């Protein structure tokens, strides 16, 4: 591909957004962006639209003055007000392009703030300028910053850290929690981060200012004492909370792909079985059986169907592998971030796929036209292409701005795979009947 100077219709978001999804997975934790007011507002809008939840993100609201003389006063004021208004149990401070470019040292400013205010509130700094990497990396960096700031070695424990290394849906996290509970070993795991309640909150009387749920702070602190870490997803990011815990505290890490589709879920479940020493609960074996049954039911519909997969790298990889299991063809696989390892992983399951790294939707569109695509599988950002080309789009991942239920969309595990097989098949059948009607 020739070097291009411009990006047309981005396939990724910026780093601070990723950090919010990590911070909101910690109990009582409020995110604050050190930068201009717009960043917080834009990302609140973007996330609120996706989750259909209020998403509060504070800002140090840097103005011209702060930009010229440094943003220390703004950041301290922001922290102070955030504490007054929300009484958070922790604050995640993510930088923006602006704060990074003017060279504010947020670690130092936070240190000063804590001394001046005599505050022991955990404040987690993370460097997330948009120009360095995408929201996927922002999420990974924030996760690493969370353990880096909070994890403390005390007594060696017997628990396992289960780190969700990529952005998944609240429903996905709930599924993992339920699985561990059904197994009877929920207390033996520290699930990090946990957005299952915080970004898909029930309607209650007098909702709290900060939505309840999230990984308890004590558990985050305790991750340093666990006997091992199992990380799912996040394999293409350069920061990793699991690696940090291994490096710093000697907690050995095993990294797995997101459990999307049959084989990757098998891998995950077998790993858990090995750790726990007790067989997977029958309920999940039955789900596995139903997934196989579903795939048998739909195999003729999906046979040879040419799919364009795009979105976050870990999800795109999982979807690609799953399509192969189902007999469909991942003809175009695209992600907004750039990782040669991603390319190799895709190539390993699909020799013919057109792989796009660092892609924008203009490139994805070109490839979709060339590759005779039957179905698109990815975020709602593909909607323009879908409409223009008359190709059905099954929405998976973030953002999903034009359909409801993103927070409740289950993608992982046997159940998620079966639901996805249904959704893909139904989209093709819908399209078929539309075409038949037109004739």
């Amino acid at each position, binding site marked *: 591909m020739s070097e291009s100077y411009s990006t047309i219709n981005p396939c990724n978001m910026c780093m601070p957004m990723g950090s919010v999804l990590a911070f909101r997975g910690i109990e009582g934790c409020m995110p604050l962006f050190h930068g201009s007011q717009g960043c917080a507002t*834009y990302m609140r809008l973007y996330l609120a639209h996706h989750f259909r939840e209020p998403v509060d993100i504070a800002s140090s609201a840097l103005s011209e003055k702060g930009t010229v003389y440094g943003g220390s006063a703004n950041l301290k004021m922001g922290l102070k007000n955030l504490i007054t208004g929300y009484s958070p149990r922790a604050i995640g401070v993510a930088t923006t392009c602006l704060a990074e470019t003017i060279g504010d040292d947020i670690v130092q400013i936070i240190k000063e703030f804590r001394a001046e205010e005599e505050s022991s509130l955990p404040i987690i700094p993370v460097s997330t300028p948009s120009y360095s990497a995408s929201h996927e990396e922002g999420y990974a960096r924030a996760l690493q910053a969370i353990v880096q700031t909070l994890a403390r070695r005390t007594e060696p424990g017997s628990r396992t850290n289960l780190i969700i290394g990529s952005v998944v849906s609240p429903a996905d996290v709930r599924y993992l929690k339920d699985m561990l509970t059904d197994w009877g070993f929920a207390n033996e795991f520290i699930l990090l981060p946990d957005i299952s309640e915080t970004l898909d909150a029930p309607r209650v009387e007098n909702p709290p200012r900060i939505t309840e749920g999230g990984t308890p702070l004590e558990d985050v602190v305790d991750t340093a004492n666990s006997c091992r870490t199992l990380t799912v997803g996040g394999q293409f990011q350069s920061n990793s909370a699991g690696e940090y815990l291994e490096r710093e505290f000697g907690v050995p890490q095993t990294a797995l792909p997101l459990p999307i589709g049959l084989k990757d879920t098998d891998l995950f479940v077998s790993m858990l079985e090995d750790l726990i020493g007790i067989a997977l609960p029958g309920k999940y074996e039955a789900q596995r059986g139903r997934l196989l049954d579903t795939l048998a039911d739909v195999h003729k519909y999906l046979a040879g169907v040419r799919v364009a997969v795009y979105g976050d790298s870990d999800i795109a990889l999982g979807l690609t592998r799953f399509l192969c299991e189902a007999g469909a063809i991942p003809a175009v696989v695209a992600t907004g971030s750039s990782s040669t390892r991603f390319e190799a992983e895709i190539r390993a399951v699909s020799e013919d796929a057109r792989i796009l790294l660092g892609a924008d939707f203009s490139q994805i569109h070109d490839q979709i036209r060339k590759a005779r695509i039957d179905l698109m599988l990815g975020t709602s950002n593909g909607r323009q292409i879908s409409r223009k080309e008359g190709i059905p789009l099954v929405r998976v991942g973030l953002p999903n701005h034009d359909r409801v239920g993103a927070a409740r969309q289950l993608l992982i595990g046997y159940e998620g795979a079966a639901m996805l097989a249904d959704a893909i098949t139904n989209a093709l059948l819908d399209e078929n009947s539309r075409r038949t009607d037109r004739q």
Partner: protein
Amino acid sequence: MSVIKIFEGREGHISQKAGSDPLPLSCSNESLAGAVSQRACVYSGARVVLNPLTDALHLVHGPIGCASYTWDIRGSSTSGPDLYKNSFSTDMTELDIIFGGEKKLAGAIQELAARFHPPAIFVYSTCIVGIIGDDLKSVCSKAAAELGLPVIPVCSEGFRGNKNEGYKAACNALFELIGMEEYRPSSPYTINLLGEYNVAGDLWAIKPLFEEMGIEVVATFTGDGRVAEIQRSHTARLNLVQCSGSMTYLAKKMEERYGIPYQRISFFGLGDMAAALRCAARFFQDEGMLAKAEEIIERETARVMPEIVHYRTRIKGKRAAIYMGGAAKAVSLVRAFEELGMEVVIIGTQTGDRDDYRKISCMVRDGTVIVDDANPLELRELLAVQKADLLVAGVKERFLAYKLGIAFCDFNHDRTTSFEGYDGLVNFARELDVSLNSPVWKLPLHRSSPLEITEFENAIQKTGERGTGQCLRAIPQ
């Protein structure tokens, strides 16, 4: 008197009307850090004003995020070109920050111009461009000379203020286009519509009414707009300004340079709509046109009135809260709610100025709370204290309202229903009715459990010796 208190330093921004004196409200200053303001940035202001120009190429010079979050988010419709539905970015990376992004920008302009052949290119600057000092002006003017088309820098570094500064930057950019093309209007009566963004096709309900009066709309700023229309907009005799927050600045500039007077109008609500039509007719001092305007007003009002009356009976007396970006829309909403028999109990804006709040303060009834640059915590408290039944605002506020069990109406630029003009008010009333009277708000938040001890059972337990557990759980007859 402070109605609620959450943040130190916000007291002056919240006030409750009492008596006839207009309230002096603190406004037009920087948002309080950490308070989760609903405001956006300069870039955002510039982008929302310019983006509805459908055939222009909108290029964001900055890191990817600024382009990601503004891709096709505005509900402005087009009757033709759709170039504006793309998000173009120079996607600045670390190296561009270190070595400067001018070369990349110049390359991007050339590349995109060659591929899309736009009639004009707007180049938006973002926060870091202002810091690293890329010379947007010289890159743009060089490109303009080479390409032979307007390449206009939009000075919209995010940190340089709030949305209002962005509106100004957009107006300055538009002003560069005006007067570039000669044009002979087909009617002696010509107007421009400023601050009309054709959200959900609003414009298409308005424009025909003016045309029926014999008026030619030369250009709309910027809903369903075309670059060429803007370029010849200096040939209009009158500017009608709707969203005054974003466009008064431009109207003044046009008055100064081209001698085009402007009038503030609104197309929302029956009264405001009628006033807008009359305003144009009066300006042209044409008896026939005035009569035509009255005819249209009478005809259209009669046409929609039965439906308005129907909805009014269903929503009358309900209490509304308004939180808008700009003050013009908020003011128009107050009148519309009056027409619909609803009471306004909270009114707030992100970017209103002293004059706006004085005007609002004179319009609303005693007891109404007026708030500047609110945040979720304040909105939440105010909605409760003021016992609001409904909130009119944008997406960020929607889910807050729902979580609190309060009806909601989206009146922001990403709404999908047209609210302007005669049918627009019917749509608006219908949406209020649908949300206010939805059965979902009446669903019990608590399920009554057979295991819970009810008051009735409590009474038995206290008085009766025969109150065994088993008998307590029996359903009372």
